[in-house]
């Protein structure tokens, strides 16, 4: 609920996003937007032997949603599909360094995770849980 949420790591990724762009022929690909604020994130993943070999995100929106996507994609390199599907929001929020984002901004921070879950469940052919990012 204050500028405390703009930690150094968030500002760093906001200013210099990693893994930004698209992949051609990704194995996993999904996108979603937050209708309230218009933030938009897409994630493309290429797998090799069921392990993330390349990952990119694209999108636009606030510093929180964009840096969180950048940070998340950084964290997913070399993970297995199973690990992707089990990745928790706590892992992401801890890395962001802002465990108490508050209800208004947490959706921004978790948008990329939601997109990851949508893509992974689609890839696995299993049904998406009600609140996939939680």
């Amino acid at each position, binding site marked *: *609920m*204050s*500028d*405390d*949420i*703009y930690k150094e790591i968030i*500002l760093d990724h*906001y*200013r210099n996003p990693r893994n930004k762009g698209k992949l051609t022929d990704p194995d996993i690909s999904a996108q979603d937007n937050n209708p*309230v*604020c*218009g*933030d938009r994130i897409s994630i493309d993943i290429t797998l090799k032997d069921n392990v993330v070999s390349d990952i990119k995100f694209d999108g*636009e*929106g*606030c*510093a*929180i949603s964009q840096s969180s996507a950048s940070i998340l994609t950084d964290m997913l390199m070399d993970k297995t599909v199973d690990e992707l599907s089990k990745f928790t929001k706590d892992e992401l929020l801890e890395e962001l360094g802002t465990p108490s984002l508050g209800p*208004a*901004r947490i959706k*921004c921070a978790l948008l990329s995770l939601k997109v990851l879950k949508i893509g992974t469940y689609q890839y696995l052919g299993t049904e998406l849980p009600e609140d996939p990012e939680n």
Partner: protein
Amino acid sequence: MSISNFQDIKKDFPIFSRKINGKNIIYLDSAATTQKPNEVINSISDYYKNYNSNIHRGIYSISIEATELYENARNTLAKFINANSSRELVFTRNATEAINLVANTWIPSNLKEGDSIILTEMEHHSNLVPWQIIAKKLKLNLKFIKIQTDGSLILDNLEELFKENAKFLSLTHVSNVLGTINPIKDIISKAHNHGITTLVDAAQSVPHMSVDVQTIDSDFFVFSGHKMLGPSGIGVLHTKKKILENMEPFLYGGDMISNVSLNDAQWNEIPWKFEAGTPNIVGAIGLGKAVDYLNNLGMSNVHKHEQELYSYAVEKFSDLKEFKIFGLENKNSTGCVMSFSYSDFHPHDIASILDGESIAVRAGHHCAQPLMEKLGVPATTRASFYVYNDESDIDKLFDGLQKVRSVLT
């Protein structure tokens, strides 16, 4: 009356004594909802402590007193907008419900397949979605008065739009994103020439300027109490008597009937025919008090105050790099709303960082997504002003925006 004359009134609003992290709240979101003066808050407590009871049917003293308080509030509201009679005023929950009431009752009995409803591109979702739904249901067409990027309506082709099957026109008096005042008197008079019935969404005008429904000549006129110093959960629908009398009720139940058997019922007189069930009694009474408070200030002073604040802000921000006020070119604006963009900083980041300084502004589409598309942005940051704001609030906003830049670059 200069801006400074209103400065002392922050004391009337207890929320400004609250501190968050040691800072007073700089409240710049009155277009969403306004703060409440002591008079209004106390009238609510006073009601519950001394008069609380059900109205209209009670024979005992407090019920008679409560009924009087409720109906006096209706009179106060009627005078405030210069209605011909207080019986033209129906209390609703909010402007949104009032619009839905009209869409659900008047429209189906008066429009038929192929008819058109005219709206504008600057409507709040509450004055857009109800018409989309009824249009789908009855196979009506929706047509839109377009806007230019300065926030004003394009009115040269009105005659074109009003021809053919146009039967109903619903438009906002003042834009909640840009503050633009639409020339509704003119538009309505042209609409009436074509036999078109009209609704004015006055949610953003009644709080900020003096209005006169007889001069405006609207058929329906709606607004919300919470945006004009009044309580939660109360709104007003004003309708010309002849129209209201011929309308079917909207909701059915206690208080709106005169006679009921197992298979049939007759309705009460207007306006009670439209107030089914126990109403928000205290909401109406508190809104009456809010109007007393506004009358005391004088609505022309309120308008002037906001215009002066807006001018002060425009001047102050003119030097700020990469700062853009939407609709600034438009001179016909209440001055109660300042929507802006600031560099490529996202409105949510701006609002979050301002919140760290205890400054409350709104970021988003302001329930006006179609207008956002027109402005070419997914969202804006909006600072909106009311009677209790002063120059120092704008100075704080200015300082806050410096902070935004320093955090984000």
